[in-house]
C-alpha cells in the first residue's frame, strides 16, 4: 500500500497533536488543575493514529486499554471537549460525568470506555451487530491492552464475533506492561494468537510504526466490510511513560527503558523518516507544531473557562424519563 505525501503529513500532524496535547495535560495535572488519575499515551501515538486513519468516520471506535486520550484525539473529538472533560467541567464531552476514562461521542461514533478493563469488547461486537442489522458496511474497531486479554470477557467477545462472523477488528495494543505485570510472562508468543482457536485472521505487527498499523488495520477493515468477519491484530508498542502520572516504575529495568525511549518512539522515528525522505522540512514541522500549540492553548482556555457542573445535574441522566407509558 503506497502512502502518499499528504497522507504521511497527516499521520505526522495527528501524532504531533497527541504528543503536544498530552505534554500540556501532564503539566496541567502536575499543577493540580486536573483531578483524579491521568494515564498518558507516550509510545502509543503511532498505533492510535494508524488505526484511526484506516477507519471511516462512520465506523465505530470502542476504545479500550488504559491509553485513551490519544484515541479520542485520533477519532476527531475536539481538544477543548476532551480537556474540559479531564477538568470535570460542564463543557466536557460528557459534561463532567465521565472524566478521562469515559469520553464518548456517539455523533462521532466513539463508544465510551469500559473502565473495568476488558469489558468493552462485547459491546464492540454488539455495535458491529447493530451495523450489520441496519444493513450498513460500517465496522467496529475495538482496542484493548495486553493486560485486558487475560479477562474472560475478551475471549467471549472473540467467540461471539466469530460465531456470527461480525465486522469487528480487535486491536491489542501490547505495550508489554499491565501496570507492573510483564506481558512476556503470558503464554502466547503473540497476543494475536488468541484469534487462532477461533479461526479469526490474526497478525502481530510493530505498532510503533504508524504506516504498518495503517496498512494492517486497513486490510482487516476491508475484510470486515466485505463480510469476511473479524480480525485480531497485536500492535506491539513500548510504554514510554509510567502507567499513570505518579507511578515511579520501580519494576522496570532502567537501561532497557532508556533503550526503548531511544528506539521505539513512534513520533521521533516517523519525523526522521519524513525528513530523510524529503516529505517535510524542519520548517514544515515547526509550523505544524506552532499551529497545534495554538489549538492546545485554546483547549486549555476552553476547559478553564468552562463552568463547573451545577451540583443538581448529578441527578440527571440516570434514567430517560418519562418511562414508557408514563405521562409526558
Amino acid at each position: 500500500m503506497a502512502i502518499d505525501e499528504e497522507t504521511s503529513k497527516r499521520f505526522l500532524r495527528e501524532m504531533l497533536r497527541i504528543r503536544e496535547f498530552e505534554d500540556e495535560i501532564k503539566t496541567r495535572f502536575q499543577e493540580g488543575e486536573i483531578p483524579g488519575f491521568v494515564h498518558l499515551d507516550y509510545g502509543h501515538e503511532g498505533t492510535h493514529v494508524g488505526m484511526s486513519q484506516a477507519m471511516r468516520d462512520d465506523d465505530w471506535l470502542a476504545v479500550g486499554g488504559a491509553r485513551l486520550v490519544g484515541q479520542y484525539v485520533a477519532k476527531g473529538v475536539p481538544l477543548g471537549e476532551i480537556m474540559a472533560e479531564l477538568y470535570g467541567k460542564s463543557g466536557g464531552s460528557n459534561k463532567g460525568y465521565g472524566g478521562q476514562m469515559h469520553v464518548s461521542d456517539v455523533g462521532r461514533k466513539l463508544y465510551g470506555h469500559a473502565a473495568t478493563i476488558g469489558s468493552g469488547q462485547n459491546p464492540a461486537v454488539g455495535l458491529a451487530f447493530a451495523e450489520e442489522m441496519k444493513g450498513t458496511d460500517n465496522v467496529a474497531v475495538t482496542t484493548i491492552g495486553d493486560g485486558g486479554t487475560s479477562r474472560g470477557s475478551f475471549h467471549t467477545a472473540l467467540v461471539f464475533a466469530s460465531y456470527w462472523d461480525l465486522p469487528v477488528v480487535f486491536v491489542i495494543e501490547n505495550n508489554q506492561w499491565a501496570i507492573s505485570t510483564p506481558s512476556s510472562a503470558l503464554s502466547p508468543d503473540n497476543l494475536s494468537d488468541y484469534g487462532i482457536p477461533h479461526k479469526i485472521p490474526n497478525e502481530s505487527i510493530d505498532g510503533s510504526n504508524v504506516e504498518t498499523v495503517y496498512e494492517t488495520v486497513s486490510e482487516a477493515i476491508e475484510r470486515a466490510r466485505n463480510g469476511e468477519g473479524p480480525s485480531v491484530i497485536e500492535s506491539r508498542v513500548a510504554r514510554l511513560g509510567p502507567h499513570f502520572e505518579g507511578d515511579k516504575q520501580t519494576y522496570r529495568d532502567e537501561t532497557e527503558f532508556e533503550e526503548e525511549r531511544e528506539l521505539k518512539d513512534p513520533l521521533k522515528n516517523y519525523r526522521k523518516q519524513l525528513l530523510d525522505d524529503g516529505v517535510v522540512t524542519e520548517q514544515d514541522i515547526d509550523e505544524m507544531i506552532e499551529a497545534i500549540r495554538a489549538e492546545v492553548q485554546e483547549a486549555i482556555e476552553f476547559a478553564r473557562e468552562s463552568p463547573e457542573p451545577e451540583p443538581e445535574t448529578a441527578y440527571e441522566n440516570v434514567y430517560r424519563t418519562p418511562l414508557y407509558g408514563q405521562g409526558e
Partner: protein
Amino acid sequence: MTREITYIEAIAEALGEELERDDDVVLFGEDVEEFGGNFGETAGLHEKYGGDRVRNTPLSEIGIAGMALGAAVGGIRPVAELQFADFAATAGDEVFNQIPKQPYVSGGRLSAPLTIFAPSGAGIGAGAQHSQSVHSWIGNVPGWVVVTATTPYDAKGLLKSSIRDDNPVFFLPHKMLSEMKGEVPEEEYTLPLGESVVEQEGEDVTVVATQVMFHRAKEAAADLDLDVELINPRTFAPLDTDTIAESVEKTGHLVVVDETVERYGTQGYIANEIVENNFFSLDGPPKTIGVKDVPIPVSPALEQEVLPSVKRIRAGIKSVF
C-alpha cells in the same frame, strides 16, 4: 375482548408482537431458536421472524449482556435472554458496571434501550443457583429499570413497555407462574412502567407484594377478618412510592412481602421509604416478610420452608394489629 391464556403464552405474545411491530427489535439468548426457550417463551418466534432477528448465542452471559449493550447503543432494540435470573451474576461486570452506567457516564450522550429477560424465583426445586430473586441486586444499581410480572396481564403489558422503553430494563418474570392462567385482552395494550397499581381495595392494612408472593398474600388476605388493600408495585426501580404512601395514609398499616432475601431485600427498602417519609400515616411498625437468609435449598420440603408461606404471610398481617 378478553380470553384466558397462560403467563408464558402472554410473554410469547408480547415478544412476537414487538418483533412484528418494530424491525429494530432483535431477540437473542441461549436456546431461543427451535428449542423455544426454557419455559416455552420463544416458541415459534424463530420460525416466524427468521434467524437474523431471533438468534441463538453461545453459552456466555457475558457475551449476551455485553453484546446487547453495544447493539442498543448502536441503534437497535435487543431483548437479551438469560435462562435464569441467577445468571445476572455470571455477567456481573456487564450487569452491574457497564449497562446501567454507560448512559450516565456519557453525560446522557449514549442511550441503551435494551431489555434483559430473566426468569427468577424459587419453587421448582431448581436449587441455590437457579432459584434466586435478584431484583434487590439489580435495583441496587441506579440506571436499571427493574420490572417484575405478577399476572399474565402484567407479563404481556409490562414486557411490551419494557421493550419500547429507552432505558435498560431488567424484566423478571417468575418461573413458578409460567402455567398460571389469567385474563388478557385480545386487543393491543401496554402497561406503564414505574407505576404501582392497587389490585384490591381495602381499609385496614396495605399489603405490597409481587409475583408468587402477591398470589400468596391474596390467599392469606381472603382468610382474614380484615379489609386488605393489595398493591402490586410492578416496577421495583424506580419505585412508585406515592401509590403505596396514599394507601398507607388510608389504612395506617403496612406489610411488605417479597421473594428477595430479608437481609438487604426490597421489603426493607419499601418499608423504609414509608417510615421515613410517611411515618405519621402509620399506626404501628411495618412488617417485612421475605425469603429467610439462606441459599435456596433443593428439597421441596426445605425450599417451601424458607419461602414466605400463606401461613407466614397471614401471621405477618395479623402481627401489625
